């Protein structure tokens, strides 16, 4: 059921949500780049297509304190620091990022369930926002994502006059119920009209026709052993930018931080681009940057789909395209293989 609210009452909506739960939404920084910020009075929704960092931060933050240890002589006391997480709402998530949660869920909610992630997922409500002006770097449609009809608990569409909202899940229905006083029921005519217009733009995007067939038709070993990796990876700087801005990159490391009077055990995003990634006692499994670079793309385009009924581990958000210091990215990799 479609509801709507006049755009000049957006602030009332945000205030109503904030009165009950923490509300996070994309906000423009003074450098013109958007990032998720907690709503306080006066906060304006970003006009940018997307945030530099993805919405995975809410469920899988850059660092998570897992537990603490108090060390006294030979006694070690383990302190469970997990607290009941508060309910929160993330507003303005795009279709690509919304799909990333399906991918992350397959990793973190598979047995054994990651309780830190699961708790956040349980407490978080995701309200998505359909795209109206995609960027040249967008290629969500390559992975079957419809930017005009985002997933998430509730989906929104913004026009010049109204914000339209429709529930996708029970959580979304509860969200809409909580703000119903501000909404009016309406037809989905305007939404449909916007979808038609945007779909036309989406169909003309530079990467709309990129095919991923090569990775479906060829064997893991053929792709793994391809000579192309050497050339593709030759100028990789071995930084972790692509992995950290990626909404689906999920690898982490667990480390201990000595506070001087105890230990904080925490997990922190890790990157397969780093030389000591998955380093084991005996040795390192990947000794060259080519191998590390290959790992990232094999994971997204081969290993993940092989284990998940063909679903690719990429949502086409375009962040690695806009942020890689040397402009090497998944599109260039896919195209290099598709050329064959």
């Amino acid at each position, binding site marked *: 059921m479609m509801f709507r609210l006049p755009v000049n009452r957006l602030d009332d909506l945000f205030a109503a949500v904030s009165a009950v739960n923490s509300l996070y939404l994309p906000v423009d*920084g003074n*450098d*013109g*780049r958007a*990032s998720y910020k907690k709503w306080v009075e006066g906060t304006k929704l970003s006009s940018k*297509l997307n945030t*530099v*960092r993805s919405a995975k931060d809410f469920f899988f933050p*850059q*660092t998570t*304190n897992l537990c603490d240890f108090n060390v006294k002589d030979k006694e070690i006391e383990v302190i469970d620091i997990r607290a009941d997480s508060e309910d929160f709402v993330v507003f303005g998530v795009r279709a690509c990022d919304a799909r990333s949660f399906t991918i992350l869920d397959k990793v973190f909610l598979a047995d054994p369930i990651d309780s830190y992630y699961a708790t956040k997922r349980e407490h978080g409500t995701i309200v998505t926002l359909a795209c109206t*002006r*995609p*960027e*040249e770097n967008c290629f969500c449609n390559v992975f079957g994502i419809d930017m005009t009809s985002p997933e998430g608990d509730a989906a929104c569409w913004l026009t010049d006059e109204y914000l339209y909202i429709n529930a996708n899940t029970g959580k979304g229905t509860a969200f809409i119920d909580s703000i119903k006083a501000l909404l009016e029921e309406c037809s989905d005519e305007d939404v449909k009209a916007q979808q038609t217009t945007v779909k036309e*733009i989406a169909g*003309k*995007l*530079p*990467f709309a026709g990129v095919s991923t067939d090569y990775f479906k038709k060829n064997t893991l070993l053929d792709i793994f052993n391809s000579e192309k990796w050497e050339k593709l990876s*030759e*100028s990789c*700087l*071995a*930084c*972790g*930018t692509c*992995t*950290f*801005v990626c909404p689906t990159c999920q690898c982490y*490391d667990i*480390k201990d*931080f*000595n506070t001087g009077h105890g230990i*904080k055990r*925490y997990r*922190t*995003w*890790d*990157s397969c681009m*780093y*030389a*000591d990634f998955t380093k084991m006692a005996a040795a390192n499994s990947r000794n060259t940057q080519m191998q590390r670079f290959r790992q990232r793309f094999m994971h997204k385009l081969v290993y993940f789909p092989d284990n998940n009924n063909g679903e690719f581990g990429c949502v086409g958000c375009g962040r690695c*395209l*806009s*942020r890689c*210091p*040397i*402009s*090497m990215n998944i*599109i*260039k990799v896919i195209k290099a293989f598709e050329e064959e």
Partner: protein
Amino acid sequence: MQEVKDRAKQLLADGTVNRVVGWKAGEFSYDITPAVFTSAEEIDKDFIYNDFCAPNLSKYLIKESRKEGKLLVFLKPCDTYSFNQLLKEHRILRENVYVIGVPCTGKVDIDTVRAMGFQGITGMESDGENVTVHTLYGDKTVLKADTLGDKCKTCKSKKHVVYDELIGEDGEVNTDGARFELVEKLEKMTADERFEFWRGELSKCIRCNACRNVCPACSCENCVFDNPASGIQQRAAVNSFEENMFHLIRSFHVAGRCTDCGECTRVCPQNIPLHLINRKYIKDINEFYGDFQAGEDTETRAPLNAYTFDDCEPGIVYSRGGNE
């Protein structure tokens, strides 16, 4: 630039070099990738040199110059300072490198163009004066001067300090001091304001290491931040204040060696003006020890590596005043 491509092909053909380190065209005009070319066909197909080729190729030569045979590299004026500095540090094998200096009038920066409000940029063309931006939503022409990245807006030099041959006319060193304007602004802040400024900027850091890995002055075989025994190994820490330490330690380590090539700020995914930290050191070194430009030559001993009776006393830090 056809002349650049032709010269690369000539030097490959006559055997002077067996490969060319240059820039490779991407999907759009702005997504240039550094690359090694080994044949005329590859050069014809993908080699590019234009107003979008910002990446500094010097650092790649640490590895590349140790491979079999001589290579050709194209360096912009600011890149030649990095090259010289790396020679001085014995990190590049000079005899294996043939350097062609290429002219530069400043590089168009995609993030600057995006910040101007352009969305869906499918291509750009520059005629040196103006940049035409093609987008999904229409085309527009803007002044090139408005599209430059931080490193180019306050270009330090259009003069090549090292080369085997030059293409085009050499330029002049820029002495207007404009690159220190923002540093001066920061110096005029109170200590608290400055602390707030840097906390605000550095707290955005995602510890991706792009600044370090692109930096020609960061050429350690094994960085302290990659050393498990250091306790500050390259991941984000549970205590976010550590990000400040990462940048301060890194900047101190490159102090006196940083040529101000500006790559750190250009590649930062979080748009942190990292170059301002290094520029502060450069400004201080100039004021304390006399003007010094790292990478200007390969012989002059750097002020921080040399001792003279004229050196300022360490106490100057306390006595020169400033804003407490």
